[in-house]
C-alpha cells in the first residue's frame, strides 16, 4: 500500500462515525442512481421482450389515442369504443396477413356477487401465442362456458380449477379450467374467456376492442397498413414499435423525474463529502502545519486530502452498488406495486459496466467536491498552523 493511501485511510479511520456516515450518504445516492439506470434498462428490455412475445405486429383499433392502445396491448385497459369484427373480413382478405385475432376487454358488473369483473375476451386458440410467458395451472378453455382466471382474481375469490365462477348470458355455469400463475402484472386481475362468450355477456355481438395482426413479412408492414387504412374507414393501426414508443415516452417522463431526484441526492452527498473533509482539514490544521514543516509541499498536502475524498467516494460507491444489487428485488416489488404497467421479468439486473460507470461517476463527483478542501488545506500557512 502506498504511503499516501495508508495515511489517508488512517486519517479517515480517526473519525469512524463521520467517515461511515459520509460514505453511507454516497452509498445511498449511488445505489439509487444505479437502481434507476438499471431499472430503465431492464424496463426497456422487458417491454421489448413482452411486445416481441405477443407474436403480433400491429393492432387495429377504433380511431383514438395511441396511449390507450399501448395500455390495451400491454395490460388490457378498458377502452369504451368497439370495432366491428367485420373488419376481420378485410383483414383476412388483405394480402400478407398471416393471422388476425380479435380482443374484447371490458368491465362487467356482477350484482349477485357485488363486484365488477374485468373480462378479456380472446380467441383461446391464439392465447398461448399472444401470452407465451404465462404458466397456467389447469387448461386453456376449449368450450364457450369455460374461463381462465388471473392469479389475483382466483385468490381473492378463493376459486380453484373446476369451480364455477359465474354464469353465461344463457344462465349456464362458467367453469374455471385454469388459473394463471402470478405474473406480477395487470394480467393477474382479469377473467379470460372465449371472445364469443364475452360478446354475449356484453350484449355486443361481433364487437372487439382491438384486433391483433401478424404479418408474413414484417418488411411489408407499412404497405399492408396503408392498404388497410385506405380500405376500412374509422380504424387506427398501431404497430408494436409505436406502442413501444408510447410506453417509452411515458416511462421517459418518470425516468427524467427520477434522474433529477437522484442528481439532487448526489449533489447533497457531494456537499456532505465536502463538509466532512473540510471539517477534518480544519481539525488537522496543526498537523498539516507540522507536515509542511517536515518537508511536505502544497502538492503533497493537496494529494493527501484528495485521496481521502477518493477513498470515501469509491468505498461509498461500491457499497451503494452492493446495497442496490442486494435490494433489487425489494425495489422491483415496490415499483411493480406503484407503476400501472411493468413488464414481466427482471427489471433490475446487475450490469458490471453500469456499476463501474456509476462508481466512476460518483468518484468524479467526490473528487470534485474534495478539490476545495484540498486546496484550502494546501494553502494552510505552516507558521500560523503551528502557532495554533
Amino acid at each position: 500500500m502506498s504511503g499516501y493511501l495508508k495515511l489517508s485511510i488512517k486519517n479517515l479511520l480517526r473519525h469512524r462515525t463521520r467517515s461511515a456516515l459520509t460514505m453511507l450518504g454516497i452509498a445511498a445516492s449511488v445505489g439509487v442512481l444505479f437502481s434507476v439506470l438499471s431499472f430503465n434498462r431492464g424496463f426497456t428490455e422487458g417491454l421489448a421482450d413482452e411486445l416481441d412475445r405477443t407474436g403480433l405486429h400491429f393492432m387495429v383499433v377504433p380511431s383514438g389515442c395511441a396511449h390507450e392502445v399501448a395500455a390495451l396491448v400491454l395490460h388490457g385497459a378498458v377502452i369504451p369504443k368497439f370495432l366491428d369484427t367485420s373488419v376481420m373480413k378485410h383483414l383476412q382478405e388483405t394480402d400478407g396477413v398471416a393471422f388476425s385475432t380479435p380482443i374484447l376487454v371490458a368491465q362487467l358488473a356482477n350484482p349477485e356477487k357485488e363486484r365488477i369483473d374485468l373480462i378479456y375476451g380472446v380467441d383461446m386458440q391464439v392465447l398461448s401465442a399472444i401470452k407465451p410467458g404465462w404458466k397456467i395451472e389447469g387448461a386453456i378453455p376449449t368450450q364457450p362456458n369455460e374461463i381462465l382466471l388471473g392469479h389475483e382474481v382466483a385468490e381473492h375469490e378463493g376459486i380453484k380449477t373446476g369451480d364455477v365462477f359465474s354464469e353465461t348470458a344463457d344462465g349456464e355455469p362458467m367453469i374455471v379450467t385454469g388459473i394463471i400463475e402470478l405474473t406480477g402484472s395487470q394480467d393477474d386481475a382479469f377473467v379470460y374467456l372465449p371472445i364469443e362468450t364475452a360478446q354475449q355477456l356484453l350484449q355486443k355481438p361481433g364487437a372487439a376492442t382491438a384486433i391483433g395482426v401478424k404479418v408474413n413479412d414484417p418488411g411489408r408492414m407499412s404497405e399492408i397498413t396503408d392498404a388497410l387504412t385506405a380500405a376500412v374507414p374509422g380504424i387506427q393501426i398501431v404497430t408494436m414499435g409505436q406502442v413501444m414508443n408510447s410506453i417509452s415516452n411515458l416511462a421517459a417522463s418518470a425516468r427524467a423525474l427520477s434522474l433529477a431526484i437522484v442528481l439532487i441526492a448526489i449533489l447533497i452527498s457531494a456537499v456532505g463529502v465536502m463538509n466532512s473533509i473540510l471539517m477534518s482539514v480544519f481539525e488537522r490544521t496543526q498537523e498539516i502545519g507540522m507536515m509542511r514543516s517536515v518537508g511536505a509541499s502544497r502538492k503533497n498536502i493537496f494529494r493527501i486530502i484528495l485521496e481521502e475524498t477518493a477513498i470515501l467516494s469509491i468505498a461509498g460507491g461500491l457499497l451503494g452498488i452492493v446495497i442496490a444489487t442486494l435490494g433489487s428485488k425489494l425495489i422491483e416489488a415496490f415499483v411493480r406495486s406503484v407503476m400501472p404497467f411493468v413488464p414481466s421479468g427482471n427489471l433490475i439486473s446487475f450490469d458490471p459496466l453500469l456499476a463501474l460507470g456509476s462508481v466512476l461517476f460518483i468518484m468524479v463527483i467526490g473528487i470534485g467536491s474534495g478539490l476545495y478542501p484540498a486546496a484550502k488545506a494546501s494553502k494552510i500557512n505552516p507558521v500560523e498552523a503551528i502557532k495554533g
Partner: protein
Amino acid sequence: MIELNNIEKTYRRGAEDVRALRGVDLMIDKEELVAITGPSGAGKTTLLHILGCLDQPTNGQVLIDSIDTSNLPEFELVKLRREKIGFVFQQFYLIPGLSVFDNIALPLLFSNKEASPEKIKRLAGMVGLEHRLDHVPSQLSGGEMQRTAIARGLVNDPEILLADEPTGNLDSKSSDRIFEILRSLKSAGLTIVMITHNPDLAARAERTIQIKDGAVHTEV
C-alpha cells in the same frame, strides 16, 4: 553554517503592525548546540521559523550553508527543509492513527524515499524506542512522544535540528533525557538550535542567546 544578517520581521495583527524581530544578527556554527531563551512574545519562535525556512524575513539576509534563502521560491524552500532541516515541536504533532514506525517515517513520504525498516529501527534505537515501534501515540508517555518526534526530525538526515521548546510539556526526568539525546546528536555532527524556557537546560547548551523585544539581548 547559519548566518542571519539584520533580520527584520513585521507582521500585521488586526490594525497594527507588529515588529517581531528588529535587526537580528546571528552566526551559528556547524555542530553547535545553541539555546534561545527569552520571555514570551520576544520573537524566539519567529526567529526559529525563519531559521527553518518556514517563514521569510521582511528584511535582511538568511544564509544556510552560504545559500541565501531570503528570496528563494517556495519549492526551493520545501527542498531545503527536506534536505537540511529537521523540526521538533513542543506539542509533538504525531499523527494519532499511525504507529511510531510510520510517524518516524512520515517525512520520507514527502521526499519520495523508501522507509527502510533498518533505518527507522536505528533511529528508534537512538532515542530508546526500539521496543515501541508498533505502538500508536496514545500508548506512549509524553517523553516517548517527544522522542518519536525527534526521530522523525532526523529521518531525512538533516544537518540542522530546530527544536521549539522540546521539553516544554515534559517532566524533569524526561526533559533530561531529551536534552541528552540532543547533546548526543550534536556530538554526532548535527547543528542544534533549541528554544527553551528551562534555565537549567539553557545553561547546559554551548551557547545561550537571549532574545528580548525582537532583538538579541545577550549572548553567553
